[in-house]
């Protein structure tokens, strides 16, 4: 099972994301943003958190239009698995691979703390290691995690069971308490909380490990 982790200038969670994949048994290739193609044989792409391109223009906007961004978008459109965490979620929304947009937190402050999430669906490769309705604790660290989507888009997300995670206590004003969403084919997941920061006890929690284990386990067996 082979994962690619993309690094943009300003990414700062790429090593953590790499470690989480490795601990779950994946081989990881780091890919620099100037590459125009992905290495061969990639099963899943991880887009890490951070402040790609200094959050200039809009969070994730420049990264989503970078050379590797096009390759990531093509990979997703061919049915590839892509996990975007925090800034990675913003990048995926800017690419149009996930609906909606991430705006400034309602309280305007950068929030960095562990939060309780409810896993809303176990029907995805990312969430099948959890039970629907299960509460987990995963840290957030963002200033722009206020998920916004119009009423029609929200109805669609709900109707298609594509809300992966909701905040138990909404920290940032996100519409419908949404913390993570799935693409229509359920193979692209964007989430503001950082599962890669809670994969071993030394990090203070392990609630994120099931996400990576399920992802790599299923793919290794396939």
């Amino acid at each position, binding site marked *: 099972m082979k994962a690619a982790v993309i690094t943009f200038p300003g990414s700062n969670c790429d090593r953590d994301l790499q470690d989480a994949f490795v601990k779950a048994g994946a081989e990881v290739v780091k890919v620099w943003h100037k590459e125009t193609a992905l290495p061969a044989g990639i099963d899943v792409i991880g887009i890490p958190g951070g402040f790609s391109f200094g959050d200039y223009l809009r969070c994730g*906007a420049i990264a989503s239009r970078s050379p590797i961004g096009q390759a990531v978008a093509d990979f997703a459109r061919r049915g590839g698995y892509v996990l975007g965490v925090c800034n990675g979620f913003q990048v995926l929304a800017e690419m149009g691979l996930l609906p*909606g*947009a991430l*705006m400034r*937190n309602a309280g*305007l402050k950068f929030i960095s703390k562990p939060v309780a999430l409810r896993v809303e669906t176990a029907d995805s490769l990312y969430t099948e290691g959890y039970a629907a309705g299960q509460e987990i604790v995963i840290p957030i660290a963002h200033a722009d995690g*206020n998920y*916004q989507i119009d009423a029609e888009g929200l109805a669609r997300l709900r109707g298609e069971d594509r809300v992966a995670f909701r905040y138990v206590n909404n920290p940032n*004003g996100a519409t419908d308490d949404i913390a993570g969403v799935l693409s229509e084919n359920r193979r692209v997941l964007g989430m503001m909380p950082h599962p890669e920061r809670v994969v071993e006890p030394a990090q203070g929690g392990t609630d994120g490990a099931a996400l990576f284990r399920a992802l790599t386990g299923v793919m290794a067996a396939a």
Partner: protein
Amino acid sequence: MKARVHVMLKDGVLDPQGEAVRNALGHLGFEGVGAVRQGKVIELDLTGFDKAAAEAEVRAMCEKLLANTVIEKYTVEIV
């Protein structure tokens, strides 16, 4: 030729920054401020276009990069 692009949040999209500015104005004693919306102005120096072509090109730039049309609207002014 210069183009000036105004990018604003669409009506109905909550603007937490504008709201904070409105509150601050209230604290300073400015009265009668109903709502504040904060946007961006982007200026571009363009060469090799006539006015119509420049406007079309800048609109394409807005659609592809300068605005996120999920939450933002834009206007293009050629000056």
